[in-house]
C-alpha cells in the first residue's frame, strides 16, 4: 500500500538527513553519547520510514537485500579484522594498538574534562564504524525480509 504524495515527499527529504545524523552518531561515538549500535539503529529507522511511505515492490528496486546482507557481513568481518590486526603488532587480540601512536585516530588525548578531539581513541572509532555498518544492514534487512514474508497478503 502506497501512502500519499505528502508522506512520500517528506520521506524522500528526511531520509538523507536521518542518514547523516546516524553517521554523525557513529563517527562521534567516542566523544558524545552514541556509538555503533545506536547510529546503526537510527539509520535503520530511516530505512523503515522509506519502506512505510512507499510499498515493498518499489523499495526493493533500490534498497537491495543482497547489498544490505553484504553490509552486515562486511561489518562483522571488519570488526573481527580490526581486532585480529593487533596480532600483527605483536599484541593480544583486541589490543588498542593505535592509541597514542600519532597516526590515524592516534593523537594523545588531554586527561580529565576536555572539549573533545575527533582524531583520538585508536581502534575504538574503527570498531564503531564496523558495528554501525553491521547494524545498519542487519536491522534494515530484517524489515525487508519480514515484508517479503507478508507479500502475498498484499502489503
Amino acid at each position, binding site marked *: 500500500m502506497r501512502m500519499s504524495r505528502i508522506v512520500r515527499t517528506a520521506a524522500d527529504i528526511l531520509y538523507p538527513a536521518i542518514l547523516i545524523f546516524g553517521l554523525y552518531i557513529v563517527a562521534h*561515538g*567516542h*566523544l*558524545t*553519547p552514541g*556509538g555503533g549500535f545506536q547510529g546503526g539503529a537510527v539509520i535503520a529507522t530511516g530505512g523503515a520510514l522509506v519502506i512505510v511511505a512507499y510499498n515493498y515492490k518499489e523499495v526493493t528496486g533500490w534498497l537491495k537485500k543482497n547489498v544490505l*546482507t553484504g553490509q*552486515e557481513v562486511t*561489518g*562483522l568481518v571488519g*570488526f*573481527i579484522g580490526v*581486532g585480529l590486526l593487533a596480532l600483527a603488532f605483536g599484541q593480544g587480540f*583486541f589490543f*588498542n594498538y593505535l*592509541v*597514542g601512536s600519532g597516526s590515524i*585516530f*592516534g593523537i*594523545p*588525548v588531554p*586527561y*580529565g574534562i*576536555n572539549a*573533545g578531539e575527533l582524531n*583520538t*581513541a*585508536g*581502534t*575504538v572509532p574503527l*570498531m*564503531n564504524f564496523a*558495528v554501525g555498518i*553491521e*547494524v545498519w544492514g*542487519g536491522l534494515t*534487512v*530484517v524489515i525487508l*525480509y*519480514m515484508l*517479503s*514474508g507478508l507479500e502475498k497478503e498484499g502489503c
Partner: protein
Amino acid sequence: MKKMLVMGVSLFIIAAFFGVMALNLTFGSPTMTDMDDYFLRHGQEQTGSNNECTAVVFDFRGFDTLGESTVLFCGIIGVALMFRKMQGGEEYEDE
C-alpha cells in the same frame, strides 16, 4: 480454578520476596566500585576515548561486544532463512 489459585499464591510469594529485596537495597550509593573507578581513572590514557562507556564496550570488554555482534548476526541470518525464496514451489514440510 485450582491452577489459578496455585499461580496466584506463587506469584504472591515471588512478589513478597522481590519486594523485601527492593526495600532493603539502597539507591544511589553502590558498594563495590573498584573496577569502575579504575575504568574512570585510567580509561582515558589507556584507550584515548572520552566516552568511558564506549571505552568499556569496545576496549575493556571487547570480547563481550564480539559475542553480541555474533548473536545479532545469527538472529538476522535466522530471519533470512525463514523467509528465503523457495526454490520451484518448495513449501515447508508437512508432517
